[in-house]
């Protein structure tokens, strides 16, 4: 048999296409296996539980498993009879039929937005059917946000108000109807509060304007199961929590606040001697020494995506450090000492960010709170660097910035140890290779809180134990007030 030219070329062409296709497919699959697009999810908020479910796409429409949706909310049971799917949820009986857009729930006919899907004995309905379907199962208000795929069952929505209560420095106070714990992140020109666990809902208007040039507006948005508040500001902003998490106060950072107060003072008395120089962008800001003679930075270690040590199945180090840090702030406030927390929520901060923020605002000292289930009592740690008195030129080495401040850090460590011992807490003073201590250009100590009794991790979560540690640390910090920090440049 002889093949014609065209048949040969056609065959070779087809074979080449197959080879290229297979090779391309293999390479594509290998690379596609790496980073993947996060799957769509439905987030449900209710009085019983808050949870998220995966969303499956079927014929271009988003579907969710009805059994999975209802299981956390009550007693649910399903049986399959041919194309018919019978569901019982608490006392409500429902009948769904495969590929039918009509269901019967509690004796009433319900029109679904898209046909009911039945696969492997599990029934699924389109997301947009939920608003029509669920009121027949629950005798409660159902709020469905199709854009963000948030489903709120019952009166669990968290409302909030926001208003500027002071102008210089401006203070934005947001009151929530129940405690919230958003992820807080700071970006140039804005502060972002991301609510992943609470059913925060939009105010009357999604953009609130405040008529203040430094904190100009707050915008509400919802995406993929979460609500977010973006606060626009001309200055770096920080959020502080109070009232058990029901109040969030947004203020300019300490450095920005000082500059704004100085600006206001200069306006009132332009010739005032000793007015601090302002950061014009070309030169570093001169920080007024008198205005913040004793100002403490408190750093609740870890946070956000970094949980720290798993102290128990439920208890993460980041929660304990934040709780103790908040108590320490209150104790210092009671003693008339100003403090600033680097994170006052579940924010992710890198070690470098912590050092940069601290060095930028020039506090009298830096206290970093850690927690551990190992050992007992409190460990106090200063940097594991040799003292270096000559590291005071115009530029400091980032990795050894702490060296010149080490004597002051050790004095602080001694004062804290003494105060803790007076409260009958066992203390150990050591050096440790723990960042960001090495990068700080201020006196700094890391405090690792362990249970009062070895092995009893639950101690760490007891308010009385946390309060004892916080008040003892505050006593030690107050003791240092009379001694000028030796490391301040």
């Amino acid at each position: 048999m002889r093949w014609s030219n065209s048949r040969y070329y056609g065959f070779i062409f087809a074979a080449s296409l197959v080879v290229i296709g297979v090779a391309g497919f293999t390479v594509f699959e290998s690379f596609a296996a790496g980073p993947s697009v996060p799957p769509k999810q439905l987030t449900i908020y209710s009085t019983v539980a808050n949870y998220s479910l995966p969303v499956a796409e079927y014929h271009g429409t988003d579907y969710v498993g009805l059994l999975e949706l209802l299981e956390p909310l009550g007693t649910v049971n399903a049986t399959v009879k041919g194309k018919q799917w019978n569901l019982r949820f608490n006392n409500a009986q429902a009948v769904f039929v495969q590929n039918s857009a009509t269901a019967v729930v509690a004796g009433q006919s319900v029109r679904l937005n898209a046909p009911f899907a039945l696969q492997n004995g599990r029934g699924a309905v389109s997301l947009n059917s939920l608003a029509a379907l669920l009121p027949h199962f629950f005798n409660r208000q159902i709020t469905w946000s199709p854009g963000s795929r948030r489903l709120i069952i019952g009166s669990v929505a968290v409302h909030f108000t926001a208003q500027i209560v002071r102008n210089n420095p401006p203070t934005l106070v947001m009151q929530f109807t129940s405690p919230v714990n958003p992820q807080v992140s700071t970006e140039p020109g804005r502060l972002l509060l991301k609510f992943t666990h609470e059913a925060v809902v939009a105010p009357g208007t999604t953009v609130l304007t405040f008529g203040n040039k430094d904190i100009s507006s707050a915008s509400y948005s919802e995406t993929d199961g979460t609500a977010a508040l973006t606060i626009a500001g001309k200055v770096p902003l920080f959020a502080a929590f109070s009232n058990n998490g029901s109040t969030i106060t947004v203020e300019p950072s300490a450095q920005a606040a000082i500059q704004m107060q100085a600006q206001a003072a200069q306006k009132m008395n332009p010739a005032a001697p000793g007015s601090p120089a302002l950061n014009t962008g070309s030169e570093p800001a001169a920080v007024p020494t008198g205005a913040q003679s004793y100002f403490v930075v408190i750093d609740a270690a870890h946070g956000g995506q970094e949980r720290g040590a798993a102290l128990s199945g439920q208890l993460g180090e980041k929660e304990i450090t934040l709780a103790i840090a908040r108590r320490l702030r209150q104790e210092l406030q009671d003693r008339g000492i100003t403090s600033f927390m680097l994170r006052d929520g579940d924010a992710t901060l890198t070690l470098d960010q912590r050092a940069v923020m601290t060095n930028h605002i020039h506090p009298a000292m830096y206290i970093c709170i850690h927690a551990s289930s190992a050992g007992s009592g409190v460990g106090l740690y200063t940097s594991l660097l040799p003292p270096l008195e000559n590291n005071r030129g115009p530029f400091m080495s980032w990795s050894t910035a702490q060296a010149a401040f080490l004597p002051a850090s050790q004095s602080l460590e001694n004062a804290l140890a003494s105060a803790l011992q007076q409260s009958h807490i066992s203390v150990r003073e050591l050096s440790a290779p723990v960042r960001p201590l090495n990068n700080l250009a201020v006196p700094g100590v890391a405090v690792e809180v362990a249970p009062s009794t070895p092995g009893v991790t639950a101690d760490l979560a007891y308010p009385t134990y946390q309060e004892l540690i916080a008040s003892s640390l505050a006593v030690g910090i107050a003791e240092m007030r009379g001694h000028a920090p030796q490391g301040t440049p």
Partner: protein
Amino acid sequence: MISRQLAISAAVLAVAALCMGLFVWHMRGRGTQTEYSAADSRPVTPPAAGPTEPVTLYLADDATGSIRPLETRIALPEGRQQRAEELLRALMIQYLGKDSTHSLGAGSEVRDVYLVDPGLVVIDFNQAFADSHQSGILVEELTVLSLVKTLSANIPGILQVKILVNGAERETLAGHADLADNYDVAAVDKLVAQMGESQGR
């Protein structure tokens, strides 16, 4: 004109490519599932054989929060680099034992040790060493001090130690102990002594 043999060869190659593509696709899924066995704590590399030498291992003790010396004998090869590897493996065996006073995660292992003159030792651990390490300032610090002190006490001329994980730099061991910078042997010696003093108080 293309011969019939050439056409058949092309067809065979195309089929082979298709089969290989499917095979690779199939194996890709399996490859991602291949991980170290967390339950297997045995070191992969067998200890060196031969005559033994006296060495001092510096073992961390979680209960007292200190480093204590342990005089023992192990078989050590001639080269400094190989000696360093064997010392660290002997240390890891102590920590992976049932009665260890300072536990490391199962599967922890030294991948490589490099001696870089003048006086720098680079230790490369596997991923399990860091991922399964207990988290905390003191517990992480004890691990690092034990490694540095054991090497410097048994191999003369070591001034600094750098720790890598899986061949790469890592910011911290398990959230606390700094792995970004080198460890200074003199500072570690001083701290180990300080730990002994503060523990005795």
